[in-house]
């Protein structure tokens, strides 16, 4: 009698196991196991070179009344230029990081910390990239890094590839790979 009576229990156990496998499979398919990405903004950037000597203390859309200071990592200093069909093309290598410290005003006090950072990371293969760059806003209080995969950063910086009002104004309409003040050795 025991053996006979135990069959339905075994069947029920098997059914539960099968259900667990199905649910587990579905969970795997629906991507329940996504993990938080690691930081893409290096902490030690102050020793990097600046992209320009120009004091960026004038209002511009996006940063308005904020002083900006920009830094480029060593990988970015390997930027290459190439002339094609009479136009110069700038190309920053993959791995380039450009960090822009944004201060709360156009005239911050000495030693004052920036309020946030806007960052460009060259990763053409990343699906979140636009124009080959990942655009990030980092809140320096919460340390939160927010990827801006919509127009806000990208559209402004697209103007860098044509004539614009800043720096040398790119009068030759070079393709500057979305960087307003290209790194010059």
């Amino acid at each position, binding site marked *: 009698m025991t053996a006979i009576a135990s069959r339905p229990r075994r069947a029920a156990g098997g059914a539960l196991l099968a259900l667990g496998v199905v649910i587990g499979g579905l969970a795997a398919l629906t991507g329940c196991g996504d993990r938080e990405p690691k930081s893409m903004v290096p902490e030690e950037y102050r020793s990097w070179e600046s992209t320009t000597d120009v004091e960026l203390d004038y209002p*511009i859309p996006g940063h308005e009344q904020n002083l900006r200071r920009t830094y480029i990592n060593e990988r970015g200093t390997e930027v290459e230029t190439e002339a094609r069909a009479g136009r110069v093309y700038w190309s920053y290598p993959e791995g380039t990081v450009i960090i822009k410290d944004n201060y709360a005003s156009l005239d911050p006090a000495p030693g004052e910390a920036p309020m946030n950072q806007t960052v460009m990371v060259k990763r053409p293969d990343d699906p979140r990239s636009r124009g080959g760059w990942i655009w990030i806003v980092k809140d320096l209080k919460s340390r939160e890094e927010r990827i801006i995969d919509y*127009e*806000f950063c990208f559209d402004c910086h697209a*103007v860098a590839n044509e004539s614009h009002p800043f720096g040398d104004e790119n009068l030759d309409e070079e393709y500057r790979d979305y960087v307003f003040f290209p790194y010059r050795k």
Partner: protein
Amino acid sequence: MQQSGSITRRINIILILSLTVGIGMTIAYYAGTQYRDLLVSTQDNLDQQSAILYQSIKNAMLPGQASVAVELFDDIGSVRQNRQSFEISLYRANGTEAFSDNATIQEVNTRRGDRMFEPREEFTVRQIPIDERETFGRSVARRQKILIREPDGSSLFLTLAGDRSYFTLYNPLINLPGLCTRCHGSDHTVRGLIRIRSDITATVDKQRRNLLFSSLLFVGIVVVLTLVLTLFIHGHVINPVKHIRDVCALVTGGDFTPRVMVHSRDEIGVLGDTVNTMVEGLHERFELSKYVSASTIESLRNSEAGTNALITVFFSDIRGFTAYSERREADEVVDRLNRVLNAQTEIIHREGGDVDKYVGDEVVAMFTGDDQALKACRCALAIQREMEGAEPERFDGLRVGIGVNTGSVILGMIGSERRADYTVTGDHVNLGSRLCSVAKAGQIVISEHTYARAQDHLRVSRPYRVSVKGKTAQQRVYLLAGLEPAAGGEGRA
């Protein structure tokens, strides 16, 4: 633990639960995902439209080309008129609809220091609707697209019929360096905001109808499948099991003729075959039990060893049977003998006795219990009445003498390993047999031991002293005449 209720009902419950939980949840999940996918698809469409519009405005809003942008939005306005369910509009960052007043014209002319654009003479200032200002402001502050669903939090299931449902997308236009800033300045980031409002009521209604149809279809499928499966289970499981139960009930009642009608070779068919085999075996054993005393069967059942017991032994013998049998054919002798034995056996069983054995024309029976003596005497009287009162042709004039004695006897399985009977032996058994020998045809001779145990109920002739074989002293015996009325007696026939 025993479960109550019929198998059919339990199976139906399991079926309905399985179908409801299995198919129902799948359909519900499918309907839910379809609905969500449709909404996401609609959102994506709006997003793409806003992106196209964004690019169009960006390309139209070249320095000094505001008139082109105005024409663009006039054209868009005509689209809005043709499709009431779809609205596209452009607002400045402060919430005023673009080109609805002269503010921008005056600002640009002032910034440029000339009258590049002539102010409108007639205009109507339009503002973003009050209930949208919070979302509008959030989109401007974050410089990010925001898409909202109205009514807020509504779903396919919660949206009531008749309610209208909307998607509204707010897409900020960036004050692009060079392109915009030349005329509008660099002191702000968001130049304006595209608002697209799409009425998705028809889409939601269509999904609701699809879900309703799917639900009805599901209910129909559950009902049909339940019916089909119920009929199948009834035809192939329940009814055959009921048939087997009916056969078993008849067999339990003593009828061994019915058999299970086996129509299949599945598990039920095998069960039917097994039951048929079992009934045949029971029938054989039942037939065999006619030839084995009840005490033997009981002994076998209980595996009793030899023991002493107080028993009333009953002996009956046909008088003059040897001479009778010599004058008749064997088949007639057997027929008459069986009639006499059958009649006695019926009465013995009726009176609570147990036939121990037949020895030729002799019947040996036993009575037990507190009133064993009275039962044996009542039985003996009934047999004599039956024999004496029967029509002549029934027993052909055969008559019996009966001896009854009560005493301690030895009970046990007596015989060889190959053939044994559960029977009695001992001095009192022998005395009973001797009393039968001295009883003449139609007489019942009981011992003083039997008389002593039932004398209040018996009517007897006064004691006689008889010599019996194997006993040196004479035995005091009584001729049983009948029962006292209180014992239900009516005397001898």
